[in-house]
């Protein structure tokens, strides 16, 4: 009691703030120390392994890296272009499919059924397999008018696969909007379609931005799958150089290029999925 009285209101606060700062500093010191121990330990463990000199020569060869990087980078542009086009198509197509899948009314029944079958089918087949089937199956039909360019075919396969995933992401968003919102939209005189367009979709899309971006990151990586039917994208080129030089460094170069895109994308995903982004 006497101690409290002797302490003016402000000094208790100062005391607490000082304690908080001390705790914070101690936390930082512990984090730094444990990082050094863990990461340093891992590095030492690898660097002192019996095979390390060989691995360094085969995977981290600076000379090979310098030589192969421009070619791999050139191939990577194909990845980026394919990614952007496929992503744009997927975003639009999947939205249309999701709206169809959640539409009401008996007239939409066949469309609902078709979209359900589509999603089940293309979500259930491994993407690699789809790239093979589309890439070799469609040209084998020898129908005129169908694309034969392996990049286009690979893009179609990726689009088919990812549209199925993204349809479900959108659908989850649409279903998460409470039905009272639809009621309110209808009550002000909107049609079902207008209610979807002006009231439900804007809320649904906001809620699924983080999972959508997550699928962006996955697609950006999976573009490498089109290499199995021929296109010379980054992974393919890296493989070719590796075959010629018997050195794996070009693959590391390709990996770094993928990371250069996926890591920033992942940070964006985190930011949008944060406490603020999630609700609005």
């Amino acid at each position: 009691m006497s101690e409290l009285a002797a302490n003016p209101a402000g000094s208790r606060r100062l005391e607490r703030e000082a304690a908080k700062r001390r705790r914070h500093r101690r936390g930082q010191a512990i984090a730094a120390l444990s990082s050094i121990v863990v990461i340093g330990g891992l590095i030492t463990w690898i660097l002192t392994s019996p095979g390390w000199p060989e691995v360094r020569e085969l995977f981290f060869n600076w000379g090979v890296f310098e030589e192969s990087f421009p070619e791999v980078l050139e191939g990577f542009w194909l990845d980026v272009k394919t990614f952007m086009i496929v992503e744009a198509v997927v975003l639009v197509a999947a939205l249309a499919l999701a709206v169809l899948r959640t539409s009401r009314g008996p007239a939409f029944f066949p469309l609902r059924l078709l979209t359900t079958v589509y999603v089940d089918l293309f979500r259930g087949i491994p993407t690699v397999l789809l790239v093979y089937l589309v890439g070799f199956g469609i040209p084998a039909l020898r129908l005129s008018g169908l694309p034969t360019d392996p990049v286009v075919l690979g893009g179609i396969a990726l689009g088919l696969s990812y549209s199925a995933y993204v349809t479900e992401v959108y659908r989850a968003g649409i279903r998460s909007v409470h039905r009272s919102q639809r009621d309110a939209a209808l009550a002000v005189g909107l049609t079902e379609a207008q209610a979807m367009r002006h009231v439900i979709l804007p809320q649904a899309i906001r809620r699924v931005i983080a999972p959508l971006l997550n699928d962006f990151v996955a697609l950006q990586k999976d573009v490498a799958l089109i290499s199995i039917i021929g296109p010379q994208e980054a992974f393919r080129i890296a493989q070719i150089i590796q075959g010629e030089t018997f050195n794996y460094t070009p693959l590391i170069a390709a990996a770094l290029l993928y990371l250069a895109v996926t890591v920033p994308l992942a940070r964006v995903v985190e930011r949008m999925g944060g406490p603020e982004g999630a609700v609005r």
Partner: protein
Amino acid sequence: MSAIAPGDLVLEVRGVTKAFGEREVLRGIDLTIHEHEAVALIGASGSGKSTLLRCIDLLEEIDDGDVFLDGEVITDPAVAPVEVRRRLGLVFQAYNLFPHMTALENVILGERRAHGASRAEAEERGRALLARFGLAGREGDRPDNLSGGQQQRIAIARAFAGRPRALLLDEVTSALDPELVGEVLAAVRDLKREGMTMVIATHEMSFAREVADQVAFLHEGRILEQGPPTQVLESPRQNETRRFLGRLLEAGRA
């Protein structure tokens, strides 16, 4: 409080029944609402008040009976519900404002998309409506940033914006903190003074007494008793009505 004398028949509910699965919620409702008249629906939770309002606004499909709006049957399957809803206004218990829109956008959405008003036209009227319900300066606010009372007044403005023939109010004060009830009731009172035709489902007996021309007591999907507020609320004829009012009195709500 009947400043304006009742006029022509606006709404007529005839023998309406509605069941959700096995549960019969409405078991033959007859009700008439004249122009400039306010009819209060009272009764316990689950007595069918909300369902009746939703059936009138065609948000629920009735099983039997008919509803007429201005002498025209609206519950016929051949009638487009959208056209009917554009002639009615419904205010929900939980406001149901559009959270991704500002107060003004909420109010003008129907004007613009359902009634084909231009943006400028709708906005001008929307601002005037918000001001009228004491929300001047709040046009750009999202519902999240407003109190329950403010949100419900926006919802009333939104329902009123479509120039409805009748307003259906579904327990518009039940979700509010007690100190916010007054401002919403004042808005409804104001509409009544102007002669708005209204069906008001409510738990506020004193408000029903003040504003309503007719009070209808719903019990288990039937209207057990109907008449002027003084009669139904002060000298009810039915035992169920007495019991219901007694329970409210005990809870301090009458």
